[in-house]
């Protein structure tokens, strides 16, 4: 499979499937958009954020990015909206907002 060119499942026909559906390249999970089944997204309030980094540590998918000034931001290309970051935040700086309200 030429993963570097293909970004979603819809780019694959059955002819593109490798024997036994084997993924022949390592480290290509980052190419797979996993953020499209999210129903809620985390929104971080920079005013409240203490930059402790717990959201970054606890995110099961590594979908929290470190941005300028040592703050944190969800990467919505991958974030599935599980809410662990909002739950773990000691200063309640992260709120889960319904996607349809955005």
């Amino acid at each position, binding site marked *: 499979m030429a993963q570097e060119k293909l970004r979603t499942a819809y780019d694959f026909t059955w002819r593109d499937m490798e024997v*036994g559906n084997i993924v022949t390249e390592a480290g290509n999970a980052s190419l797979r958009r996993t953020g499209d089944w999210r129903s809620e997204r985390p929104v971080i309030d920079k005013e409240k954020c203490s930059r402790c980094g717990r959201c970054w540590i606890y995110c099961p998918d590594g979908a929290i990015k470190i941005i300028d000034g040592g703050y944190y931001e969800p990467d919505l290309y991958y974030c599935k909206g599980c809410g662990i970051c909002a739950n773990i935040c000691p200063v309640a700086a992260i709120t889960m907002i319904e996607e349809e309200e955005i």
Partner: protein
Amino acid sequence: MSKRVALEASHAVAEAVKMADVDVISAYPITPQTHIPERLAEMVANGELKASYIPVESEHSALSACLGASSVGARAFTTTAGQGLELMHEVVYVASSMRYPVVMVICNRALSAPISVWGDHSDVMACRDTGWIQVFCENNQEAFDLTLWAFRVGEDSRVLFPVMVNLDGFTLSHVIEPVFLPEQSEVDRFLPKFNYPFALDPDRPMTHGALGLPDLYSEAKVAQEVAFRKSTGIILQGWKEFGDIFGRYYCPVESYKAEGAKTLLLTMGSYSETAKVTVDERQAKGDSLGLLRLRLWRPFPFEELRQAVKGVETVIVFDRCISFGMGGPVFSEVKSALYGEEPRPKIVGIVGGLGGRDMSAEDFGYVIDRGKEIAEKGSDRILEVVGVRGEMVSIRGQ
């Protein structure tokens, strides 16, 4: 030059596995398959065969271990029967879908309940749709030959599917017959080293067994089915190459004295030899009768079957299994394969030989007579079972 020796079918299979120089054997003993893993364990223990023998705690683990072996490019073999195959069931699908060419010999056994260690085809029929190449043997020579052939075809880089070799429990697995054993050099010429293109290797990381979301699963299954259907070409080529080296040529549908016959009896497995005795006797009396034997069960040999029944009036299909609520599975497949034929022969299904019930030449005589009668007059019986005691109820169950 090959030598002719008297061998039990189970031991003939073990010889084939040894000559195929397998790397990993993982099996759990179960009647009537026991003599195969027993003999292989002995070969490994006394140094005749340099392979890793993994004594596992269940059939589920037996096949799982073979999958692991296959994933790193090892030649892997397992064997089971009846309940053991059913316990394996989950992994049976994984093997074919991940395209690991494990070879598995099944000594066909009836399923519980009531508990039966004796033969019929219920076990493999429950695995009919699992995407394994499936063949049925008639005698000891074929058990040896098809086991060897199974490695050659399954491991072909254009195939990469697991192969089930079926031998009837006891009536074949425990029978001693003369078998031609080839020279190792001939076997080596027929069977190249397994060169699996996707072997797991830390220097070349890749993922086997990834998740398939709804947006990819259909594509994965279509790719599998297309590849499986295409494997028929390599199956035939494998038999041709086998014949060219060993002098015995095999085909998907064997015709026995079938030329010009109005009625054909269709069988699978070792009971076919008894049925052939009946065909000989009937032909001698002037009956227009022949026999077809399905050797290849999956992928189903549509084309070969259609060719074999051209001009035939009646096909009587003999099943050693009941698909509950439907009838005989082979009967159903044959009927569906021939439905579009013009003209279409009459197709009748009769079940027998369940749970090791013997089928004599006279019993096959009954199958032929009753089959012809049904073809002519029809039947309102729910099922036709040879020799069953008690009057059979009608199709409505009354």
